[in-house]
């Protein structure tokens, strides 16, 4: 009895302890968070009567009330709607008239004027023009008078090559200003044009290609190069010492080399101070593929209206140097890769020659000149992601649609016959499964590469009357072209070479282990190249094509290579190699033909052709397996 009582006593005690614990635990949990925890953000209070608060708009108040009058355009806030008369550009097309320069001109002005005169927008009649261009290149004080058709500056573009030229002599009024690296204080966004600050020796055309040789930075490359005040660059130590780039703490820079002159050290980032004089360094870094890091630039970046500079450069606040340094050190490889490549794309497309700079300026003006602003044009190349290029010249677009894979199938949309004879075409044509259209070519070579409206597909198979191809060959070439729509896919090839003995370019059908051109007598390519050929070739090259029709193959290959920076693609052809030399240029391509490549190269200003040593064959091409397994049996014959 006693023991049991004791036991039950113990049990009851135990139970009460247990219950006590159970009961206290939640109480403890409640007890801890009462009152705000130290350190945790308190936040904006949750008002008990938040639901009862009134709207900021009074109940009777209408969102719109008294109307406002129109404002007359003011000179200070000019934009395209207010200060530019676009009606002229729409009726007569975008034509540019250049006032003849009165003063002895500088070399740069000469180059610029030559580029404008070579562009397709140039006109000699001031009445036809929608844009009048006036160059001011005189040092301050000596200025030309106000030009005859000034009209308050309306539809005028003032090209100011020296920062201070003629600033006081006449009012700019409604004129736009194109200036190299204008200061951000006077630049009128959406109206003025910011040009790059070019060195005097900048080439008129062609120009040196970007210097980037590899996509990712070399592991040994320095992180940061600094533009020095005296010119030249130096490599910075990147341990976060307090003043890694401040010119004032020169005492101890550790192991750095000074690079005198223009040579740019091998670095991933190039730090450029914000002074206007440093704008030259900006282009230098861009060409070298060294990602420009601009510290609070006081000047407007070139073509900032159309180029998205955040994709190629880093603009940072000079007041936060340590933050910038940390950001550069921690930048993910993917971003570095993208920035580096974009510098090269921009350099090659817009800046490498005076001609390109001028074309970019005119194209961006032209795009503003349309009577309204809306989405981008339909060019396959002016993809918006590339910085909304005005008729860019390159294919690289970081973003392309992800299309689900479908079995490639060839469907011929239509056949276009270009009748290039003075005699009328025959009245009856053979029956074809697809529509056949005959276009009169009037013996002009350019008609062959004209963007005929009848071309409705992206792919064009260009053929000569005497080309003969089997269906296997064409089918396979088309399938390959679908994988590489930006390149030319052809059967017969030439290759170019530098003739040391004569100091000139040459090309041949004989160097058979590699090639750099395909013959357009049988080749697939994108129809966009017709647009490029017709609308963006410089005048001189168009004239060359008309004068020397046999050069058109070379010219087309140059055009595509300049746009893609890649070699064309060769696919197997059933014909034997000996037939490769084209009938229209017999033998070893003759002296006239050899002349071609030299003249075209001179017209382009550089040699864009790239050699390739590979040929794309069907997967089972000439493999010792049953022919029945193979899809393109027609190619198997020796």
């Amino acid at each position, binding site marked *: 009895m006693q023991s049991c009582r004791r036991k039950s006593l113990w049990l009851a005690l135990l*139970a*009460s302890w247990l219950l006590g614990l159970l009961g206290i635990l*939640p109480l403890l*949990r*409640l007890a801890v968070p009462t009152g705000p925890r130290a350190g*945790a953000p308190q*936040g*904006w209070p*949750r008002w*008990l009567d938040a639901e009862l*608060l*009134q709207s*900021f*708009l*009074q109940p009777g*108040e*209408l*969102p*719109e*009330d*008294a*109307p*406002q009058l129109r404002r007359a355009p003011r000179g200070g806030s000019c*934009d395209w709607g*207010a200060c530019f008369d676009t009606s002229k550009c729409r009726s007569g097309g975008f034509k540019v008239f250049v006032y003849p320069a009165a003063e002895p001109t500088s070399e740069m002005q000469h180059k610029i004027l030559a580029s404008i005169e070579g562009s397709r927008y140039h006109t000699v009649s001031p009445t036809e023009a929608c844009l009048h261009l006036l160059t001011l290149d005189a040092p301050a004080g000596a200025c030309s008078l106000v030009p005859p058709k000034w009209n308050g500056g309306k539809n005028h573009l003032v090209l100011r090559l020296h920062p201070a030229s003629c600033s006081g002599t006449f009012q700019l009024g409604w004129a736009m200003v194109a200036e190299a690296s204008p200061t951000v204080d006077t630049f009128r966004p959406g109206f003025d044009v910011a040009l790059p600050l070019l060195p005097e020796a900048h080439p008129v055309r062609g120009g040196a290609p970007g210097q980037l040789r590899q*996509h*990712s930075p070399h592991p040994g490359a320095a992180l940061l190069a600094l533009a020095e005040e005296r010119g030249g660059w130096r490599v910075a130590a990147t341990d976060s010492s307090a003043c890694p780039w401040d010119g004032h703490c020169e005492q101890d820079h550790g192991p750095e080399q000074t690079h005198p002159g223009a040579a740019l050290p091998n670095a991933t980032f190039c730090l450029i101070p914000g002074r206007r004089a440093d704008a030259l360094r900006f282009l230098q870094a861009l060409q070298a593929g060294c990602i420009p890091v601009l510290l609070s630039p006081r000047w407007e970046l070139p073509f900032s209206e159309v180029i998205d500079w*955040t*994709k190629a450069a880093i603009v940072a*606040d000079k*007041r*936060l140097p340590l*933050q*910038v340094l940390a950001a550069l050190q921690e930048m993910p*490889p*993917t971003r570095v890769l993208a920035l580096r490549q974009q510098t090269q794309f921009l350099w090659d497309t817009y800046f490498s020659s005076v001609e390109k700079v001028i074309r970019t300026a005119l194209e961006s003006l032209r795009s503003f000149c349309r009577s*309204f*602003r809306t989405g*981008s044009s339909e060019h396959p190349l002016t993809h918006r992601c590339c910085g909304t290029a005005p008729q860019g010249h390159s*294919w*690289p677009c970081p973003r*392309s*649609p*992800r299309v689900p*894979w479908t079995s490639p199938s060839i469907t011929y949309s239509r056949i276009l016959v270009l009748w290039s004879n003075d005699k009328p075409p025959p009245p009856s044509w053979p029956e074809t499964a697809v529509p056949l259209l005959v276009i009169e070519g009037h013996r002009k070579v350019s008609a062959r590469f004209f963007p005929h409206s009848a071309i409705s597909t992206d792919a064009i198979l260009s053929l000569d009357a005497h080309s003969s191809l089997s269906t296997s060959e064409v089918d*396979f070439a088309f399938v390959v072209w679908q*994988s590489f729509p930006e390149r030319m896919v052809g059967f017969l090839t030439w290759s170019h070479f530098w003739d040391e003995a004569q100091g000139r370019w040459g090309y041949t059908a004989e160097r058979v282990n*590699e090639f750099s051109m395909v013959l357009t007598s049988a080749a697939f390519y994108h129809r966009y190249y017709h647009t490029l050929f017709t609308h963006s070739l410089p005048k001189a090259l168009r004239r060359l094509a008309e004068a020397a029709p046999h050069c058109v193959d070379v010219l087309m290959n140059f055009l595509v290579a300049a746009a893609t920076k890649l*070699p064309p693609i*060769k696919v197997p052809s059933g014909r034997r*190699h000996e037939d490769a030399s084209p009938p229209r240029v017999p033998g070893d391509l003759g002296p006239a033909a050899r002349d071609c490549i030299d003249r075209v190269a001179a017209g382009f200003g550089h040699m864009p052709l790239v050699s*390739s*040593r*590979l*040929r*794309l064959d*069907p*997967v089972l091409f*000439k*493999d010792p397996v049953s022919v029945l397994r193979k899809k393109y049996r027609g190619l198997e014959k020796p």
Partner: protein
Amino acid sequence: MCASVKYNIRGPALIPRMKIKHRIYYITLFSVVLLGLIATGVFQFWPHSIESSNDWSVEKRSVRDVPVVRLPADSPIPERGDLSCRMHTCFDVYRCGFNPKNKIKVFIYSLKKYVDDSGVPVSNTISREYNELLTAISDSDYYTDDITRACLFVPSIDVLNQNTLRIKETAQALAQLSRWDRGTNHLLFNMLPGGPPDYNTALDVPRDSPRRYFLLSSQMALHPEYREELGALQAKHGESVLVLDKCTNLSEDVLSVRKRCHEHQVFDYPQVLQEATFCVVLRGARLGQAVLSDVLRAGCVPVVIADSYILPFSEVLDWKRASVVVPEEKMADVYSILQSIPQRQIEEMQRQARWFWEAYFQSIKAIALATLQIINDRIYPYAAISYEEWNDPPTVKWGSVSNPLFLPLIPPQSQGFTAIVLTYDRVESLFRVITEVSKVPSLSKLLVVWNNQNKSPPEESLWPKIRVPLKVVRTAENKLSNRFFPYDEIETEAVLAIDDDIIMLTSDELQFGYEVWREFPDRLVGYPGRLHLWDHEMSKWKYESEWTNEVSMVLTGAAFYHKYFNYLYTYKMPGDIKNWVDAHMNCEDIAMNFLVANVTGKAVIKVTPRKKFKCPECTAIDGLSLDQTHMVERSECINKFASVFGTMPLKVVEHRADPVLYKDDFPEKLKSFPNIGSL
């Protein structure tokens, strides 16, 4: 147990026999137990709100209880704002210097009620919208309650509505904020000029049915000059243009804000906006903000005819993709201008307008966060959100690839490549591979990844003597992924991954493979090709190694690729693919093929006719059954990876790369790569 049993048996007899003090004792004890039980129950089942710890940290008060601040009539008035202010002149960026992760810190002043000398409140303490806005900021990552670390200050003085504001007194109230300092780094939200977006109107999702009107104007208070021009447009183009105005004949109880009229026809607003393709946003008293948000929401493309109107967030949003801006001067031509826009572009603009609305204007919270993000982007431009992230609708973002190696660049041949040999313990075969590979002219470095932790690599003197540097890396764990690690030793961009038993590839074949890679540096360039096929019966993917006409993968037993893909494989491989590969000790090559195809959107390049690495005799020994399980395993990998990637990124092609004169009728000794091996 004992006790309870005894009580049950003898219970009734127990209590009378106990002494009084014992009885009291027991009763007390039992009541304590009972109370404990009740207490536990109560706490377990009490409404949970009192336990949620969040609310304990946030004050819970009424707006009416906030402290009152009396502004003397002669308290200082701040200077007028400087209109020429720029980020680099008026913004004190030093205050943002110590923010981690490139994110600004925002401080909100606590709410006060401001009264003037005579005790009349300066303004409505806080509006519903402003409270929402401050709550959104407070809930975001930007918020800090430490005024000393903040880089941006948001006053709790509500200035959303300029119309009801007592300008002088409000300015005085702002001036006495503790960190005001001429307003440096202070952010004011002012929604008027322009009406508020109305977040209560029931509006269904835009319909796909054709829209009845081509052009619609719904604004009420327009200048007569504009109305005249709109009228002219309507007269000229008839039914397709609809110009609405305020209703004059409505009875009092109908909310006039919700109705619009054309002559005597009454339309519901904003529903009528859904009936139009283009909606006019004209210069009104407040530059038409209210109508803009209504228009966006209805999926109608705004036609902005208001010179010098700065569209909201135009710093980052590309309005060209969602709207048409026409100069006021050209208003008469607006119809023909709009007609010239192709249908496809109109549809895209409608989608874009809708997306802008959903992402940036739909709620006060969205507006507040977009505003802070823009300021953040200005202060830390190198960490800014890109154009695509701001502007591309999610469908575009997901549905497109951006090739990380987009620049067409043929690396110079002189750079050469680094060969990486993964090995475990087959030293003899490894040495043969090293000797063979070292014959390739463009090899610049050889890296041996020693994957065997139990055994040390042979002594240095035993390794074959080759003309290029040879490095041995020992790994911490025997994992297949070690092959794709971005070792610091890799100095070239081109990497040749090669197994320690691949001895059949000739020097010509490898050199040619490198040449092909130079032309396609963003692709995997390999020798034997494989294919993935859709098995219709099983409804899943199948691995195919037969001799087909197509290729979608290459084996990485010997393959060239860009070293950047090593980084991607190691650090950016989606899902648990890396672990799966290491656990199964298989399919690392398939994973690499998926990764590269997914990120570049491009197909592999198969080089030369090579079909398999092993000689035919060797596979015969393995036997058919082993081959079968191998195929099943590989197929499983494809299905697993496709589900992790959420798509099938592999691209199928029908071509391979051969040297220009391969199998041509041409003297062998004149060919650049005569020794291209057989199958």
